[in-house]
Each structure stands twice: as structure tokens, then as C-alpha cells.
């Protein structure tokens, strides 16, 4: 529809009339100016992340090391009487953790309809609003974030940043954006029936985070 393309662009140009030629467009795109970053996003504080997470019903556990993650997850599942069969993201960081020792059965792959618990690593966590930054990729299929009832996200404390903008900086450093970047802040919810807030409409009914303490490097 290149006729439509030309028509839309020319009616936009006609309506805007004469303008300065550059108008800072290139500069903005190549050197994106920083936004207004709220004070609550100005440091990568665990306390701020926890506050944001608690507000939306994300539960957060801490692990002293990666090796401790399976045991922490097993405890979480046992407490809630949930299945110990886990769909694990095909992520080398997760693969070799001691799952069997923690009495958990793991399978790797993308999320499927019958999966009840998924474990995925986050690209980053954002203190500003208690948000997880998930990216799609061979090691972190999107379906694991949106099909299982219980969504468990592993995140290193070194990947906790203050503001959304800090997460963007890290993503830019990584190269072109993946197909999907999703900020997740709490379990799926709706208020579409009489404005009553109910959790678990389509995706996860529970969102649980295990944060690995990397210590002061």
C-alpha cells in the first residue's frame, strides 16, 4: 500500500507546514536524552524492589547462592502444596543446579498448556516499581511467563537496577532488542467484573521471585 503510505505522509507534512529541517530528531534518536527518573528509581535498592513487589502480590525469597535456588523453590512449592514438576527454561545458568537433590522433577522447553510451574531467569529487576524485565530468546521462551499457573523467576541481585532507564541501557549494550521484552509487575489480574480485583485471569495465578545474593562484588 505504498499509495497509502505516500498519502498519509504527505497529509501529515501538509498539516505541519514549514518546519526547521532537523528539529533534533536525529540527535534524539542517536543520543537519547535521559528521562525524569523518580527518586525511588535512583538506586538499585533491594528494599524498594521488595516494596513494589509486595504492593502487587509478588512474593520474594532470597537465596545465598545459585546452588540454593532449588531448595528455596522446593520449600515455596511445598508450603503451598503445589506440584513439584517444573518446566525449566533451557538456560545454562539454571540447568546444572541441584534440582533432583531438592526432590524437584524438571523438564526443559517452552511453556505448554499443561505446565503448572515454570522457572525462568529474568534479564533484570527494576527497583522503581518492583518490576521484572523478561526477554524472549532460546534460553527464556515467552510462553513460560504466560501459560503456567505458577511463574517462578530467578534473578541475580547484580541484575537489580534502579530505574527502567537502567534496564534499557543494559539491553542496548547487549545489541538489538529481542523479539519481546516484557516488564512484569505482579501476577495476572483483572478488575473487569464490578471493579473487583481478581488475580489469575489468563497467565500466572502466582508470581514468585528468588533473588540470588551476589554480595558486594
Amino acid at each position, binding site marked *: 500500500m505504498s499509495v497509502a503510505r505516500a498519502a498519509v*505522509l504527505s497529509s501529515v507534512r501538509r498539516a505541519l507546514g514549514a518546519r526547521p529541517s532537523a528539529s533534533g530528531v536525529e540527535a534524539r534518536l542517536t543520543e537519547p536524552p535521559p*528521562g*525524569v527518573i523518580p527518586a525511588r528509581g535512583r538506586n538499585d535498592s533491594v528494599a524498594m524492589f521488595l516494596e513494589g513487589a509486595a504492593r502487587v502480590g509478588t512474593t520474594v525469597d532470597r537465596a545465598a547462592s545459585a546452588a540454593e535456588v532449588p531448595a528455596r523453590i522446593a520449600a515455596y512449592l511445598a508450603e503451598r502444596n503445589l506440584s513439584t514438576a517444573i518446566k525449566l527454561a533451557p538456560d545454562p545458568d539454571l540447568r546444572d543446579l541441584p534440582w533432583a537433590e531438592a526432590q524437584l522433577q524438571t523438564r526443559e522447553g*517452552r511453556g505448554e498448556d499443561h505446565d503448572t510451574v515454570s522457572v525462568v531467569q529474568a534479564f533484570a529487576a527494576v527497583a522503581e516499581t518492583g518490576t521484572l524485565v523478561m526477554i524472549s530468546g532460546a534460553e527464556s521462551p515467552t510462553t513460560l511467563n504466560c501459560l503456567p499457573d505458577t511463574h517462578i523467576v530467578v534473578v541475580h541481585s547484580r541484575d537489580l537496577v534502579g530505574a527502567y532507564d537502567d534496564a534499557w541501557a543494559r539491553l542496548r549494550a547487549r545489541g538489538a532488542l529481542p523479539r519481546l521484552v516484557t516488564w512484569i509487575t505482579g501476577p495476572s489480574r483483572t478488575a473487569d467484573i464490578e471493579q473487583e480485583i481478581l488475580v489469575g485471569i*489468563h497467565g500466572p495465578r502466582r508470581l514468585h521471585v528468588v533473588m540470588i545474593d551476589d554480595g558486594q562484588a
Partner: protein
Amino acid sequence: MDATSHTFSANARTALADVKLQRALDRLAEGFPARRRDAVARLPEFDALRDAAVAIKDHTILNLDRYLERFEAKVLEAGGRVHWCRDAAEARATILSICTRAKAKSVTKGKTMVGEEIAINDHLAANGLDVVETDLGEYIIQLRGEPPSHIIAPAIHLSKDQVADTFRKAHGTLPPARPLTESRALLEEARTVLRSRFLGADVGITGANFLIAETGSTVTVTNEGNAELTMTLPRVHIVLASIEKVVPTLEDAATMLRVLARSATGQDVSVYTSFATGPRRPGDLDGPEEFNVVLLDNGRSAMLEGELREMLRCIRCGACLNHCPVYAAVGGHAYGWVYSGPMGAVLTPALIGLDPAKHLPEASTLCGRCEEVCPMRIPIPKMLRHWRERSWQRGPSATRSRFGLAVWAFVAARPRLYRWATGAVAALLARLATRGRFAWLPFASAWTGTRDFPAPEGRGFVASWNRGERR
């Protein structure tokens, strides 16, 4: 949908007599504004963010062609396609041809107001496709064959038992005696029904809250997670967005998002915010093979000229609806088309023409609450006055009804005005009320029919109103 904006007065009368609707509107008035106030109170930088958001949009609008071209180039670079469309008919044809080419049978949809604007569901259904809305509110109104009554809460006008009735009719294969009195039961039923639709869909259509020129990404915000399923499971993903949705950079998108959810639902941020860039990559285990962006003008470039340009800053947060005394009195359906409340009263005449929509700009008390809460600082009352002047220029015969409707709106809105209005409005009401009844007001008769409207008398009035004198 066919607009019924020309019968606003009749629509409004019906709405005022609808007890269930009035209860729903009460709930809305108690919910959204308080939650927004709390969210804003938690963020001292909120006003600075609003200013930044306004500056970003003004700069983008001034360079709209340039940012759109960059956006397009980046989508192509990521392996996606961009389809430019001048109007609704072109967008419908484009979407249908993408579906046909993909040999699609089943389509899932995320909530898109632009989709409502171009009535895409009807068009796809008429051409043999099975289309299902996946946002719970949109799903409910789709089953009922209704338009959304609120831009972010489309089924806000319905009660639990109405939803239950709808589900019983629509889900005929389920046991008729199943209990559906609890919201939870309704949610579980919708979850199950929609899950199978997600898994079986060939094409997923979502809207976009923003488009990012820097990266060619589309940004979609939901609380339910339905957009993520819609843009991940089907083979083909179509994003339907109007041209004014573009912002320059990732940082700019973050600024806009910081004001969006707080203004809309009073959340700090929505549960899911997804930035989609192109189709599935090599090695990915999921995601669509095809990524299409349908870029729609449909009246936006015309709004760039003159008085309505600032309306293009609108991010569809719904705050102006949530704080509007007229919306609170009559609800969204009375506006007769897709967009309602103050933003709808400005947009509808621009998009469907002033003639069928001329009553909407008149259905306002010009109390200024909308402009006060608008995160994009859009001067809505000024724009409503612009439309009123335009209709006035077309013929002075409109004046009488205009004044009559303004008075009617004051009265209709009384219970909510009580909570919200400024002292000046209250004083004006008191002056208007000196004779006790409004029926004597000659201009109001068009709106009140044959019956008297009791004048506002504080609680007494509200009580009699609620007791059902309007039934």
C-alpha cells in the same frame, strides 16, 4: 459500529433510568479517582513527569512524519512489515488480507480501541473468521454485542449477574446449573474458555499504547497477560495502531509509561508491559513467524491542523472519564460511539464528523476536572468550546438545546458534582435552583421530557434520586 451519538439526549435519559448502570457508575466514581490520587501521592515527581511527557509528545507530533519513517525502517530491519492505511476501510481490508494470506480461521484479539474504531471484528466475522476478544471486559461485551462503555474498562457498566447471564447463554455446552454467583467462578470459566482459544488461534491482533521509533517496537500494556498470549502463540501477529502513538526512544516510552498506569487505574505500572520487535528470531522456541504493524491515519493527520492538534497527545488513560461528572451520570454508551467521556466528546466529532456528534461537546459542564487530571495536560474544555463554536457557526438553532443540555447536565450530574465540583459550580447550581424545580426552564424541556426534575437540595435530592424517582 454505527454511531448513535446523534441521539445523545435519548441515550442519556435511558442511562439515568438504568439502576444497574447507576450502581456501576457509583462504583467507578468511588474506585478510580481515589486510586489515582494515592498513586500520584506516592510519586513526588508526578507533575515533572507530566511536563516531560507533554514535551515528548509535542516534539514527536511536530516531527511526526520523520519519526514514523524511522519507526517503519526499524520494523523492516527487525523482519516485520508495515502497512499504511488512510482510513478504516483500508485498515479492515489490510487486516483481512493478512488473515486470508495466512489461511487463518481463528483470530484472538487483545483490547484495541482503534480496533473498535474501525469495527474490525464485524468485518473479519463477515468474512468467515472466528474472532474472539481475550481481555475479559472486551470478551464480555463481545458476547453481548455491545460497544465498550469505557476506554480502559469496557464492561464497567455491567453487574456480576449480567455477566453470569451472558456466560450461561454463550457457554451452552457447560452444565446449566453451575453456580456463577461469585466473580471468581466467572473468571475461572472465562479463563478456561479463552485458554483453548489462545492455543488454537492462527492470528493474534493487539493494539499498541506506544510505538518506538528508535527500535521499531510496539508497546502494549495489560493487566491480564492476554496480550502476551496473543502476540506469542499464533503464527501471525498484527499490531493495529494509529499514527500518533509513536514516541522517539525507549527512555521516552518509559516516561510515558510512568504517567499512564498511575493516571488510568492508579497502579504504579500495569502488570504486563510488552515491547514487541519483529517476528520470532532464530533459536527462539516460541513467537509468531510474521509481525505486521498496521499504521492507521483515519483522521489524525487532519487533527494536526489547527485547534485539535493537542488532542493527539492523548494516551487513552481514561482519567478524564473517571473524573467527569457527565460521564459519571450517564456512562459511556450514551456517547453513542467508541470513545466516551471528555476525550470522546473531543475525538468523536473529529473522527465521525461534527453533524452526528454535535451533542457531545455540549454535554459538558466545562468544570475543568478533565484538564486538571489529564496526564498530557490536554485543554479539553477549550476544545469542547471550539466544537461548540463550530456548531454555532453552522446554525444558531442549536443554541437553545445547547443551553438546555448544559443545564440538564448540571442536574443529571448532581450526585457526583456534590463530591467533585468546585464552589463556583455549586453556587451556580444554587442560583439555578431558586425556583425549586427545573421544569420551568424552557430550554431544558427537550431533555427532561414531560416530567419535572427536582432541583438539587443536598442529601434530599440525592436520596430521592437514588430511591428511584427516576425509574
